[in-house]
């Protein structure tokens, strides 16, 4: 066993040790745990939406249109008599789907580019940095609007737009972490030990950048949830009659005075979901990132 390998093994052991300590620190953080519980409820509701929802979210019932919250319909019904609770549950499904997939997309594109830019520098770095600047030059909504115009409005295209909008941040964070780690002793050791670029990047640099990337993901999920609701609200995301929290808010606008519950509950659901992920994210950041808030 070479000294480099020993050093790596020791570091890995240490990392594992602090890992469980970190988990413990997170578990004692009451706000973060509250966030985790609410987030888990949303994820479960989204996964099992057809089982949990009391009614079919798309079936109109004109006899019961615009009925106030009560025993039959806990959150009331909308202008077509559809059950609001069932629509919120199915809407949460769309939110979660976009929240996770958009972040995954941003990571699939952003992490390799960030590694490339940070590790090889020079031409690769300038090319990736200009790409990042160009993406950042389009405010999120302008980008999403442009994509919706070119590809047509749909949930998939909204996910792509949100994913692309989140990519620059992932690139920048991965690049910064790579730059920092490329000068670490164990990376130099791995290189001296004959490790190829692929080995160094995937086995030594990427695993050590995970903390920063997890923190970024917890920032990305709630902002993707809000992004989906915003795009669907504007008519650029989920298309009616499919349920989405944004679509529900959009149709509620015409019935604010007679049926305020149509606007209140989907909004509360969005707030609860984003608040939950923000609290969990804040907790994770405190635990994982010794430098404090990154944004």
């Amino acid at each position, binding site marked *: 066993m070479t000294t480099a390998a020993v050093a790596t093994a020791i570091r890995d052991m240490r990392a594992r040790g602090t890992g469980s300590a970190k988990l413990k620190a997170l578990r004692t953080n009451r706000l973060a745990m509250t966030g985790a519980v609410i987030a888990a409820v949303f994820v479960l509701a989204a996964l099992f939406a057809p089982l949990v929802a009391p009614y079919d979210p798309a079936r109109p019932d004109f006899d019961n249109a615009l009925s106030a919250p009560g025993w039959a319909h806990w959150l009331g019904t909308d202008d077509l008599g559809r059950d609001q609770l069932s629509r919120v549950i199915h809407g949460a499904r769309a939110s979660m789907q976009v929240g996770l997939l958009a972040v995954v997309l941003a990571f699939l594109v952003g992490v390799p580019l960030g590694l490339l830019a940070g590790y090889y520098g020079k031409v690769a770095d300038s090319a990736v940095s*200009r790409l990042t*600047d*160009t993406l*950042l*030059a*389009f*405010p*999120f*909504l*302008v980008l999403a*609007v*442009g994509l*919706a*115009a*070119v590809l047509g409005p749909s949930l998939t295209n909204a996910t792509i737009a949100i994913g692309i909008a989140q990519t620059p941040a992932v690139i920048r964070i991965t690049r910064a972490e790579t730059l920092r780690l490329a000068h670490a002793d164990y990376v130099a050791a791995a290189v001296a030990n004959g490790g190829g670029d692929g080995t160094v990047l995937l086995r030594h640099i990427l695993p050590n950048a995970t903390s920063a990337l997890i923190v970024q993901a917890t920032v990305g999920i*709630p902002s993707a949830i*809000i992004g989906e*609701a*915003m795009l669907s*609200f*504007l*008519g*650029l995301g989920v298309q009616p009659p499919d349920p989405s929290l*944004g679509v529900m*808010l959009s149709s*509620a*606008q015409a019935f*604010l*005075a007679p049926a*305020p519950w149509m*606007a*209140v509950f989907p*909004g509360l659901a*969005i*707030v609860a979901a*984003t*608040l939950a992920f*923000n*609290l969990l994210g804040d907790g994770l950041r405190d635990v994982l990132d010794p430098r404090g*808030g990154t944004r």
Partner: protein
Amino acid sequence: MMKLPAPRNPMAAYLLTRLRQCVITLILVSVVVFAGIRALPGDPALALAGEERSPEALAAIRAEYGLDDNIVIQYGRFVGHALTGDLGTSSRTGLPVSDAIAEALPVTLELAALSLLFAVVLGIGAGVVAAVRRGRPEEWLANAVALLGLSVPTFWLGIVLVLGFAIAVPVFAASGYVPFGTDPLDNLRRMVLPAVVLGSGLAAVVMRQTRAAMLDSLSADYIRTARAKGLSRREVIGGHALRNSLVTVVTVLGLQLGHLISGAVVTEQIFVLPGFGKLTIDAVFTRDYATLQGVVLCTSAAYILINLLVDVAYSAIDPRIRLGGAAR
């Protein structure tokens, strides 16, 4: 790129680097915008024509945009026209896109200015209170409101405020725009809710940053010195600690500009304000690609320019940024 003589002044060197980056980004943005409309499936002439699809109209479009020319020549013409303020003709109204933009711009600028004012006054005020009253109920309250401000989406806050202050207690108007010059009071009555909606998220971010920066400043040595000199509490907090915290706040405002632009689109949609955002969304739904192209180009160019100005202002205030930034 043209080779420029190396300037001796580090500030000038930094400015040149930033300027060069901005020009490259602007060029890339124009390529993306230009290519976007040509990436549409089918004939770009059909896209630019909108609803009017007679062979004569298509031929006129082809002639106007020179769609039969080489793509590089087309791009050159597009940039040339854009630089002279000619952004084409709207397929919806038949009027120049630049006219529509000139009409929408004042609405959005007023909205942005009012919401910035709201965000800065509330954010800095609450941030200072939270830092000075650390560990007291005031700090707890400010933090809770800020977290809520970050988690409540703009469009929902807009709807809730309309429910509360335009329907339940009709103090403000829920929709429509009256130019400030026509009737200042009516203008403000209609702009207060949109400005609060658009500024709330920003206020939360400003509050958090002000609080953090104030806590940093308050524990610094020069504050102890200022106290030891016998300055009053007000002078120490306002004159020393806050002034040094403002640098951070300026940067945060710059970083949040993109959110402000996105938020403006949604806010204008909720309150039916005829601004830039409404123009953009209407262009998407009426397939008015010439307008869309012009609006996206203008928004992005403005965004790049403002970011440059923020960077320059920031580095002028704090020389450490310049040195750190130039090494990027």
